[in-house]
């Protein structure tokens, strides 16, 4: 590592002020940023830890939704988001215990790694991402691999998940990293079914609209029988080809529906 300034403010306003420096970066649980810095692939002049801000902590349930504070760890969500069981289960299966006890929802969503789990949950749930300055619908928030609607220095204060009638997340793990080789979240709401896919596309998390239409009409695995997803834009790497990932999307979507 190398020299950098470290601050740990106790309010969102102080954190936003501290992030005004050009090379300052917000630090959630550091499960991506710290390894990146150790490899010297990033060299922020200042880290602004969000871990000391009480307002960003914890899970609250009410009004038909589960609201997760931006600096809440995956382990806390797994333990406290019981009102949305599929969300709790997803959080409980992210990475390993170290990642779950340090990593935060805000960090995961803001990073928008194309293989991360939380973006699938947020998109499938039609979640609202709240920041220090506005509210952003999940559909507008995720804009491609590692790209989000966040401005420089904008902090995620909470993610609000409307509670579905039924939901399930199926993840085919890359066994070393436990990232999703492909992950599919299916959530059934009164006004329709949403299907979000992570790990598969080079453009990051996306909604499988054809499957949504089919499942909204008929919420059974048979409804997916004639559907196929184009492997053209899928990630191809040593773990699997684009065709393999496209195949997995369908298999996992069926499993998710069957498990709902």
């Amino acid at each position, binding site marked *: 590592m190398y020299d950098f300034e470290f601050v740990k403010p106790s309010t969102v306003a102080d954190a936003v002020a501290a992030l005004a420096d050009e090379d300052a970066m917000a630090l959630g649980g550091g499960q*991506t*940023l710290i390894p*990146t810095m150790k*490899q*010297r*692939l*990033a*060299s922020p002049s200042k880290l602004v830890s969000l871990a000391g801000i009480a307002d960003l902590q914890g899970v609250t349930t009410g009004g038909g939704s589960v609201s997760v504070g931006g600096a809440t760890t995956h382990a806390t969500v797994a333990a406290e988001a019981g009102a949305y069981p599929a969300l709790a289960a997803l959080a409980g299966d992210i990475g390993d215990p170290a990642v779950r006890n340090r990593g935060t929802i805000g960090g995961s969503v803001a*990073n*928008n*790694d*194309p*293989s991360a789990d939380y973006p699938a949950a947020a998109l499938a749930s039609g979640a609202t991402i709240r920041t220090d300055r506005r509210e952003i619908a999940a559909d507008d928030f995720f*804009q*491609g*691999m*590692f*790209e989000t609607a966040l401005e420089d220095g904008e902090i995620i204060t909470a993610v609000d998940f409307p509670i579905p009638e039924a939901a399930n997340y199926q993840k085919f793990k890359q066994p070393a990293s436990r990232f999703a080789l492909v992950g599919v979240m299916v959530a059934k709401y009164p006004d329709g079914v949403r299907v979000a896919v992570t790990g598969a596309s*080079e*453009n990051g998390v*996306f909604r499988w609209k054809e499957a949504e239409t089919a499942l909204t009409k008929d919420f059974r695995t048979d409804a997916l029988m004639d559907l196929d997803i184009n492997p*053209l*834009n899928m*990630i*191809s*790497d*040593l*773990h699997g080809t684009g065709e393999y990932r496209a195949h997995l999307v369908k298999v996992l979507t069926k499993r998710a529906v069957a498990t709902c």
Partner: protein
Amino acid sequence: MDLKGSRTIAADRMTVWRALNDAEILKAAIPGCKEMTGNADDGFEATVTQKIGPVKATFKGVVTLSDVIEGESYRISGEGKGGPAGYARGGANVRLDETDGVTTLSYEVDAKVGGKLASLGARLIDGVAKKLADQFFENFQNAVAPRSDDEAPDDDDTGREPEKKKGLIKKMFS
């Protein structure tokens, strides 16, 4: 990784050709290019900063033009070292065809990275390379002959769904 694509530019072939040899236009088109000096004959020196997720790397290197057939085609290639991050190398074979005052620019891109970038980011490199190539030609097209907003890009396989493509472009030029 390799990718191909083409774009139509509402300008005659020589206009597009001159732009392809213009340091200022290339600088504006290369995503993240902070500095670019030199000329088409001797090559350019460039400083490019890229931020992909948590990774931020600045590459210093050279951009050279080769296999030049005046007004018709060339190869543009760049090679840069990003300090501890590793190195990146990429190029594109570019060809111009004109019909009725409209030029079709076809390209074939190849890219390679090495060092830590390659060992850590293997699953991401293809996607990133596609995105950057797409941005380069999009920027270039806009620098030469800006299009109206609602016209869809016509590149065929740069690897992005039309819907998302629009979002990215809007973001870049808004």
